[in-house]
Every structure is written in C-alpha cells, then in structure tokens.
C-alpha cells in the first residue's frame, strides 16, 4: 500500500476513497486506520468511526486470511463511498467466497473463531456479499449519523496516512461507471415493472428482458430453460433461444445447467473449467466463459439461466454477477406470475365448462320414467366429479310398450355431454324404430358415425324394448355393458353384450335378442361406472360383484324402486370414502 490519502469531494457532493492492499494482516489493519481517518473528515461521530474501523478490519482480515493461493498474488481493493445519507464500503476479495447468512449466528462462548461476520452484520445497516468467478465483493452500508457538536477529529483527514490517492478524473470515472450501472439496472427494472400488467406473451417479454441483461453485463449470449410445470423437477425444457431439451435422465456431470439446477448454486465455466463435449450448451457455444444460474420463484426452482461471453476471457465481475442474479430473480417472479395467471384463467374456464356440461347432463335425464302395466321401472344416476356422458332415457309408444335406452359417451366434460345430447335427439327422432332395437342402433350408428369419427369419439349404448302385454323384451347392444336379467332364487344372465360401439365402424349391422320375461324377473341396464367402481383398497366391483349383490337384493323380492334403492346403498357401501372416477347410471325394470 502506498502513499497519500486525501478526501476527495466530487461534483455530486460525495466523497470517494479507493485503496489497494496486499494479503497481509498488518495491511488489513492499516487499511482500517486509513478508512477511519478518511471518514473523520466527513465528519462522523466517534461511535460511527469506531464501527467502520472495526467492520473494515474484520472484512479485510477475512479477505486476507481466506484468500486462495492465486488470490494471494493479487491485491484486495477497498472503496469507500460517502453519500449524502449513507456510507458504503466495498471490499473486493480473491477468496473462494462463501454463502453469507441473512444473519450470522454468534458462535458458542468457547469458540475462538467466527465472530467477524457477526460483528459486521451487527454494526452495519446492510451487508451484501456478491460472489464472482475470480473475485467477490462485500458491500457494507451504514446510515450517516450527524457528528457530535464541535470540531471533527482535528484535521486528521489532511494527514498523510499512507494510502493511494485517486485523482479527479479517476474518481469521476469510477462514480460515473457505478451510477451508469445502477441506472441501467434500475431503469430496466422500472420498465419491466410497468409492463407487468400488460398482457403479452411471456416468451416475448422474457426475450426483451434478456437482451437488456446482455447489454448491462456485457455478455454475448444467454440460454434460459424453464422447468415444465407438469414434468419432474429435473426435466428442463422450453428454452427461448434454442430448441433443446434435457431428459431427466441426462447426466448432471455433463451439463452445467443441470448441475446448477440440482445443486441450486451458480456453476461457472471458462477455459480452466470448459464446457464438456456432452454438455448441450457446448453445441451452441463451444468456447465461452460464463455461469449457469438457477432461477427460483418463492424458493421453487423454475429454470436455469446460462449467460456467457465469447468476445473476452474476462469473467463477470462480482457486481455483474449480482445484476444477473437480480434479473434472474425478478424474471423468476414474472414467469411464475404469468403461469399463475394462465393457470387461474384455465381453472376458471374448466370450472365453467364443467358447469355447462353438468347442466346439459341433468337436462338429458327424464323427469320420470314411463310406467307399464304389470311392470315397475326406476332409475338411478350419480355424477362423478368430472361430468361424463352417461345417460338413460325411455320412450313410450302408446299401448305397445316402452323403449329403454342407456348410453355412455366416451370422454368427459362438454364434448361428451354434447354428444349425449345429440344421441338423445336422434333417439327421439325415429319413433318408428323403437320396436326394432337392432335396426335402431344400426341407424344411430350410420347417422352419428361421421361426427363421432371426426371427433375420435364413440358411444356405447343398449336399447331394450319392453312389450308388457307379451311380457317380452327385445335387446340390442352397441359395445355396452350387458343387460342383466334375473329372478329370485336364480342367477343373473348377461344379455346382448355384442356389437361395436357407435362411431367405430360405419356400416355395422346390429342384431337383437328376444327374451320372455317371467313374473318377478328383474332387468338391469347399467353403465360401466357401476362395475368400475373401486373401494378403498382399489378393488373394482366388477361384473361378478354386481351380479352377486344384485341377486342378493332380488332374492328379497324387492320391487323395481326398492331394488334401485338397495343397489344404490350397496354401491355407496362398497365405495366407502373413496370418490368415484366415473358416473354411475342404471335402470331397473321389474316384472311384478
């Protein structure tokens, strides 16, 4: 450390001091004495002078004690900025750096180490530690107190205390650079803050943001990859500049970005630690220096930002790294907010869609099922959380009988509900076909095929025409669950579970079966939501489970309405507290 310090007032009324010193503890102490003398002329009260003397001593001691081998060959730099309302000291070191805690803890009474940082944080108003590749910078700020009344410490500032003087030109240049850097960063942040409420594509917004960053930190390129919302945490994709994705299985050893993501720390690369050939970044920028910085939003990793230089070997300075980190943090919040807004909008749309579908679904069910002499009829419908396309219906033909229909449109939500509506409309369009269920299904398939095919959807359906006078049923199925037919003391018979669903083959011919119905016989039409129902142990009820329980109920000679009630109770008991994933619908026809 050499010669002369003189406080220098620059044009904006601030004072500035810059000192370079060797990695030597004696010099550390000299530096703090120097700073004290310099600040005494500001002037500051004795308590503040002592605080700064102590803080600078501790910071300089750390910079000296923990300097790397290469760092010991370089001089540390201490700068003091006297502003109108505060004093700021920056100490640039050449140590390996450390993660500064928000508040250092006081070590145990017995410990002989670890009090320096605690002292600095206790005495300062604000302490930052900016980590760079080859250097780090501790920034200490403390508000200026008014000096005690009287003359400041007698003219000490004018004394030659052996420090390097920075002349007018250098001082102004340093101040200008600092102000320019702050101004660029702040103005950029203000610009983006004002853009917050404007709806614009996130990618465009981010690209503009990144270009600003490159200019400020004198970088040449960047790659930003954002974690896909629904992918695993280590899967990175969605970069802005390059179409490239990393699988979760990719080796983190070969990718600085994955390493940054997994360690949640900055990863540097340069000539001494070059990008590996297998690193996806190396395909884009083979020889470069820079860093990969993990981007977080409220503690959650949302991506990795890699920034680098091609034009120079000079690593980013600590201040520039701080700018990159600050921009990345701010960007993380913006992306997170944009995603939240998007998800919120999508959630509202989905909720509205389900509301529409639910209304449609309810409108499809008949208010009451038509009754027939000698027969009882009852139906049951229970909607799952996601509205599906189940429906049942009945069309009475005066004096001739009733056509019962049950159907299940593949899919959920509005599309399924829409097709259920269309199916129901077609069902009511051909009264002439109700006594010919097979023929009816053939016509329905022919009529609906093009629409279903275009939407890649299909419908399973079953039509049952009951002739009460003849006590006979005609049954036709299109890929639907079989009709179950049983009587007390018997066992359920599966009827008409043949034929493709509607919308699969354009020219399918559906046939029908005819069965006589004896007294006390129960016919059950149902959708697969009944047999697919799962209990808490994830076991499905299944067709055999349904048949077994149905028979127990039928054996009790319940009428149709009572059979429906008992079946509903049975299903709820089986299901327990587990929520159903599909609608449940069934119709019971009882020959009394």
């Amino acid at each position: 450390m050499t010669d002369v310090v003189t406080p220098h007032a620059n044009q904006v009324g601030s004072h500035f001091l810059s000192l370079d010193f060797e990695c030597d503890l004696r010099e550390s102490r000299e530096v703090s004495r120097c700073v004290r003398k310099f600040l005494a002329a500001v002037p500051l009260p004795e308590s503040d002078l002592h605080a700064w003397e102590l803080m600078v001593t501790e910071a300089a001691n750390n910079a000296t004690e923990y300097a790397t081998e290469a760092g010991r060959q370089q001089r540390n730099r201490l700068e003091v900025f006297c502003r109108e309302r505060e004093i700021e000291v920056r100490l640039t070191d050449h140590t390996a750096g450390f993660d500064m805690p928000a508040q250092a803890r006081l070590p145990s009474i017995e410990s002989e180490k670890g009090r320096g940082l605690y002292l600095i944080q206790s005495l300062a108003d604000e302490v930052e530690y900016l980590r760079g590749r080859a250097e780090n910078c501790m920034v200490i700020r403390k508000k200026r107190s008014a000096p005690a009344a009287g003359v400041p410490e007698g003219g000490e500032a004018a004394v030659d205390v052996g420090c390097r003087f920075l002349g007018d030109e250098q001082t102004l240049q340093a101040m200008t650079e600092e102000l320019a850097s702050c101004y660029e960063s702040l103005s950029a942040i203000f610009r983006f803050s004002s853009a917050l409420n404007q709806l614009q594509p996130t990618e465009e917004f981010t690209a503009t943001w990144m270009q600003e960053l490159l200019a400020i930190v004198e970088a040449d390129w960047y790659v930003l990859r954002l974690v896909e919302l629904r992918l695993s945490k280590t899967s990175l994709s969605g970069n802005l500049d390059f179409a490239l994705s990393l699988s979760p299985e990719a080796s983190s050893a070969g990718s600085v970005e994955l390493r940054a993501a997994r360690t949640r720390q900055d990863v540097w690369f340069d000539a001494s630690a070059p990008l590996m050939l297998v690193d996806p970044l190396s395909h884009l920028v083979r020889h470069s220096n820079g860093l990969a910085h993990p981007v977080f939003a409220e503690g959650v990793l949302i991506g990795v930002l890699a920034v680098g230089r091609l034009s120079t070997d000079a690593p980013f300075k600590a201040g520039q790294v701080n700018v990159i980190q600050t921009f990345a943090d701010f960007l993380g919040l913006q992306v997170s907010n944009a995603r939240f807004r998007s998800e919120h909008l999508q959630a509202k749309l989905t909720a509205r869609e389900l509301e529409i579908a639910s209304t449609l679904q309810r409108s499809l069910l008949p208010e009451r099922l038509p009754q027939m002499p000698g027969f009882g009829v009852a139906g049951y419908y229970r909607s799952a959380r996601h509205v599906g396309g189940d429906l049942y219906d009945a069309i009475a033909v005066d004096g001739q009988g009733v056509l019962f229909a049950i159907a299940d449109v593949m899919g959920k939500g509005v599309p399924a509900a829409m097709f259920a509506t269309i199916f129901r409309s077609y069902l009511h369009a051909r009264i002439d076909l109700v006594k010919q269920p097979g023929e009816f299904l053939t016509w329905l398939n022919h009529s609906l095929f093009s629409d279903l095919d275009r939407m890649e959807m299909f419908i399973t359906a079953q039509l049952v025409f009951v002739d009460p006078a003849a006590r006979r049923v005609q049954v036709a199925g299109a890929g639907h669950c079989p009709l179950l037919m049983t009587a007390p003391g018997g066992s359920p018979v599966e009827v008409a579970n043949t034929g493709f669903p509607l919308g699969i083959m354009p020219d399918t011919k559906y046939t029908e079966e005819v069965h006589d119905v004896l007294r006390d016989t129960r016919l059950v039409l149902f959708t697969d939501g009944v047999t697919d129902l799962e209990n808490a142990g994830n076991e499905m009820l299944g067709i055999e489970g349904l048949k077994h329980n149905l028979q127990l109920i039928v054996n009790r000679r319940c009428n149709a309405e009572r059979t429906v009630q008992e079946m509903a109770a049975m299903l709820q008991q089986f299901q327990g507290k587990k929520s159903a994933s599909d609608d449940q619908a069934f119709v019971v026809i009882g020959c009394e």
Partner: protein
Amino acid sequence: MKTRTEGDTLIVTDFTELNTTNSMWLQDLVNQSLAPAHKVVELDLSKVKFMDSNGISTLISIHKTLCKRGGKIRLTRPMPAVSHVLHLLSMNEVFEIINP
C-alpha cells in the same frame, strides 16, 4: 505491554490495541509471565481504543487456560467503544468486567 503481580493476580497494562497482530504478543506475554500462584489475569483496558474479533479470540484462549487451573480473567476499565464490542459479543457473560 507491561505486567506486574498483586497477590494471586497477574496484571497486564499499557497497551492501546488488541488486534490480529498484537494479540499474539499478549498471548505470549501471559504464557511467559503466568506463575503457579496466579489465579487471575487482569487486563487493564483503560488505554485500549480498539479491539477486533481476533483480540477477543485471544482473550477466550487465555480464559480457557486459566479455567483449567481454577482461575479466571478480569477486564478492567474498558473504554466505551471496547465495552460496546464486548457486550455485542456477549463477552460480559464470560469475563469479569470491572468498570470505573
């Protein structure tokens, strides 16, 4: 730095700082001056204007040495700035501090 003995107390006086470099001298001085009869080391801080964390570390080291022989360390008449640092680091819970 000067030392003198009063009864079972080794008194150290005449130093103005306790920092990284001179605290080693204090350690050496105490080690050399400490006799079996000494139970207390008293540091006169009335002239000490500056003490950093390494100075504190040295005091703790001397304190440990004395504890092993059933003794203690005593700090007398610290100046306000030094007293502030001692309290900031809770050293008043470790050392006996005698104010004027």
